[in-house]
């Protein structure tokens, strides 16, 4: 497997767990929706997997260093970098400090920008791009990193329809390449399109294939009063006030 997590607990403040009892395995070629409300532990789980937060209990095994794509709303818009500069950051981890970036890395960064449809914007200042374009640039950086596991924090939140379509198509390509994608989302409907879903609300509620895991009872436990279940029996919409 590419990701194996067993009885993981952790959090930000000493003695206070933001997330408890998370256990799941993800295999190559799977997109896992990490589903939950704001404050439910989605970002905490990703930060635990990144090693940003200590594992108070439990174990985490990852196939190599993961790539991380943060929420675009949290990106630094004032930073003096171009889209190409940001994509090139994906090569920093494999380049010793005393070496210049290789020509192949520059070519990989340009190819990654082309793959997300932003070849023409390579020289544009990152902060001047739209939210959807910035999200695609951050995805291009992850492509340059060439990691077997990608952790994506609400990559489809607040992006325009054209960017969302490109991003979802890219997810499918990456899945077919045998990578594992963990995608934090608060959209239960979106999660149904992917191979696995992990429901969190400060603890693990369920994990499995969407058709089995996303029952009304699980969604109710995940979202509590923020859930609206439509009467057709198949569609659930999480209603959430989203703040950044």
């Amino acid at each position, binding site marked *: 497997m590419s990701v194996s997590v067993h009885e993981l607990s952790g959090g930000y403040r000493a003695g206070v767990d933001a997330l408890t009892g998370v256990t799941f395995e993800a295999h190559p070629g799977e997109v896992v929706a990490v589903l939950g409300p704001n404050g439910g532990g989605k970002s905490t789980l990703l930060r635990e997997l990144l090693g940003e937060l200590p594992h108070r209990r439990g174990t985490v095994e990852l196939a190599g*260093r993961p790539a991380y794509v943060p929420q675009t709303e*949290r990106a630094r818009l004032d*930073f*003096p*970098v171009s889209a190409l500069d940001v994509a090139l950051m994906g090569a*920093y981890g494999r380049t010793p*400090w005393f070496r210049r970036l290789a020509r192949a890395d520059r070519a990989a960064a340009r190819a990654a920008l082309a793959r997300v449809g932003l070849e023409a914007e390579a020289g544009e200042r990152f902060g001047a791009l739209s939210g959807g374009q910035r999200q695609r640039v951050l995805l291009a950086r992850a492509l340059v990193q060439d990691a077997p596991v990608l952790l994506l924090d609400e990559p489809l939140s607040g992006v325009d329809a054209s960017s969302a379509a490109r991003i979802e198509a890219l997810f499918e390509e990456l899945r077919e390449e045998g990578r594992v994608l963990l995608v934090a989302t608060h959209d239960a409907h979106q999660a149904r399109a992917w191979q696995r879903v992990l429901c969190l609300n400060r603890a693990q509620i369920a994990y499995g294939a969407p058709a089995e895991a996303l029952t009304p009872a699980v969604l109710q436990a995940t979202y509590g009063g923020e859930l609206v279940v439509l009467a057709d029996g198949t569609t659930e919409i999480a209603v959430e006030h989203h703040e950044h």
Partner: protein
Amino acid sequence: MLSDPITRRALIEVLILALALGPLGVWVLLHRQAYAAESLSHGLLPGLVLAALAGIPLVLGAAGGALVAAGAIALAGRDERLGGDVGVAVAVSTLFGLGAMLAIAPDAPPRLEELLFGDLLGISGADLAAAAGLALAVAAALAAIHRPLALSAFDPPAARSLGAPAGRWQAALLALLGVGTVAAAPGLGSLLLVALVIAPAAAALRITRRLPAALALAAALAIAAGVGGLALSYYADLAAGASVALCAAAAPILARVAT
């Protein structure tokens, strides 16, 4: 102006400091550590005063003062009930007050002004050599860790996955800020040195759109402020450190008007 050996020595000092402090300021601003820069330079005053009282090189006093100030700032900043900024403000005010109290004690030599505002024209050979060594070390270190500094400032949550844990590199930047502060304190003083760190960098970041250009422009503006400040001091008979600080402060104002 250059025929005067005292001014020539001051010019060498300020040029070397500018080469390091200009780019250092860009990183300080990109990491949002301007308050730390000001705090550290003010908080090291007791070290400078003790060095002056003991008759040892000021740069040694600045180093000791910076270490104590950094420790006090780190400890005070951890107090969650006070909040980081309040804790740092209390620690720095305490250290600054302690330094002033030592400096105006009856037995103290009358050098408080020099310690607060620097003495570019009275810099000793030992202080110049120490400042040059430290400043060049800071400039070289900044060039060497350019990539992790960029990653940890641009995207702290992702920096670890890209091989540059943000906390580690932010700490490295603060350490370099401490060294740069120590290098500049004897010449520019505890109060004024922060102008050469922050002002040219703020102007450069306003004018340029790419990081390498911002780093180069900040160094150039800091050099211009140093040369312009010394010329102003020489021809208008003004305090050298204050003239350099005023010229540096003019850079972001002009940048704002021009852009």
